[in-house]
């Protein structure tokens, strides 16, 4: 077909049973104008080299599993058009700041642990009986946290964050943003339970505001904003409880 072009794709490979360090492999891929980087990887796997490993699922920017470094930037490979890189070559690497398991597959255990630690679900001091109906919320109350609820756990923000790269204890952008999302939810009463993680030294105070997490986030969650808002809110709450120790601290 006339609309086919050929692009060079260099992939970082790591086969733990064969090598101690990652190596590189370059493939030449004929691509159509509407192909994304993930299409090229699937083409390589199906037609050129079946040993290449990578993660993906939805192909539509929803599942968050296809995050990789594309020419040094954390990207959802199902949303990165090859034509935007052509005629230059494309370099695909696993997300940085995470241990590589094989080729483009990383170990996300650390992120999953941190996500669990901020308790990203609605916490009630006491559940009301089902017979009393659902917890209602106004559109304005929904607006308060909606942006932060768009996170698809793709971990691009962790790959973009040099603080996380240098300090692995840092709770990190997405986990804090998701904790913040529930703290902002009018139905939630779990602020206190999340605070010792979110407002700790490893939480918001580790962030020096590089801001790159928000630049790379494909869902415009803006985790940097969640962190800065939490810094201000935590500080004002502390001041308030100093000045008015009898005040109602929720």
């Amino acid at each position: 077909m006339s609309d086919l072009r050929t692009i060079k794709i260099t992939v970082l490979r790591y086969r733990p049973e064969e090598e101690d360090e990652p190596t590189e492999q370059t493939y030449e891929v004929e691509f159509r104008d509407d192909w994304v980087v993930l299409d090229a990887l699937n083409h390589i796997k199906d037609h050129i080299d079946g040993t290449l490993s990578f993660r993906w699922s939805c192909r539509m920017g929803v599942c968050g599993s296809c995050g990789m470094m594309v020419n040094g930037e954390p990207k959802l490979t199902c949303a990165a058009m090859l034509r935007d890189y052509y005629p230059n070559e494309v370099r695909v690497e696993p997300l940085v700041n995470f241990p590589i398991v094989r080729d483009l597959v990383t170990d996300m255990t650390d992120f999953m642990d941190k996500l669990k630690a901020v308790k990203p679900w609605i916490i009630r001091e006491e559940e009301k009986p089902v017979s009393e109906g659902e917890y209602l919320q106004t559109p304005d109350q929904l607006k308060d946290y909606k942006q932060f609820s768009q996170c698809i756990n793709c971990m691009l923000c962790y790959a973009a964050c040099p603080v996380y790269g240098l300090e692995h204890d840092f709770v990190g952008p997405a986990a804090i943003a998701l904790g913040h999302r529930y703290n902002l939810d009018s139905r939630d009463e779990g602020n206190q339970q999340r605070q010792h993680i979110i407002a700790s030294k490893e939480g918001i105070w580790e962030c020096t505001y590089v801001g790159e997490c928000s630049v790379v986030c494909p869902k415009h969650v803006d985790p940097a904003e969640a962190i800065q808002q939490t810094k201000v809110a935590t500080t004002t709450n502390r001041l308030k409880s100093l000045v008015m120790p009898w005040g109602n601290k929720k």
Partner: protein
Amino acid sequence: MMLDSETTKTYTRPISKAWWLRDRGYFNRRYFMFLLRELTSVFVALYVVLFIYELFLLTKGQEAHAAFQESLRSGPFIVFFLIALLFALYHSWTWLGLTTKMQAAGRGLVKIGTKTLPPIFVALGSYGAWLVATCVIAYLFLTL
């Protein structure tokens, strides 16, 4: 994927100390600008040290102070003051720009009734307050 770290041989690519110049093979302008902002504090601190030294000289008498002030008019000091000024401006400008971050999401920190004040007003307010404070301090310095 959850792993048994005992049995799986993973590889972690190290991040270099110079990540703001080159992070695993790539230069990121925003990393560089971030580090530049952090560096500004060095120049501001040096300026403060000079300033405190100058105050200290005041206790040593008019002459010592005047001699020091004269030496500050030399080329190297002027270059230093210019750099310190540029850095201080860059830091203040970017730092105050961040105030918009308090506002952008649904629940901004500055509200009028139930409505969040648009971020641009918060930024303009911060820059305005900065300008006024600078003018007041400059006025006090030049007239007193």
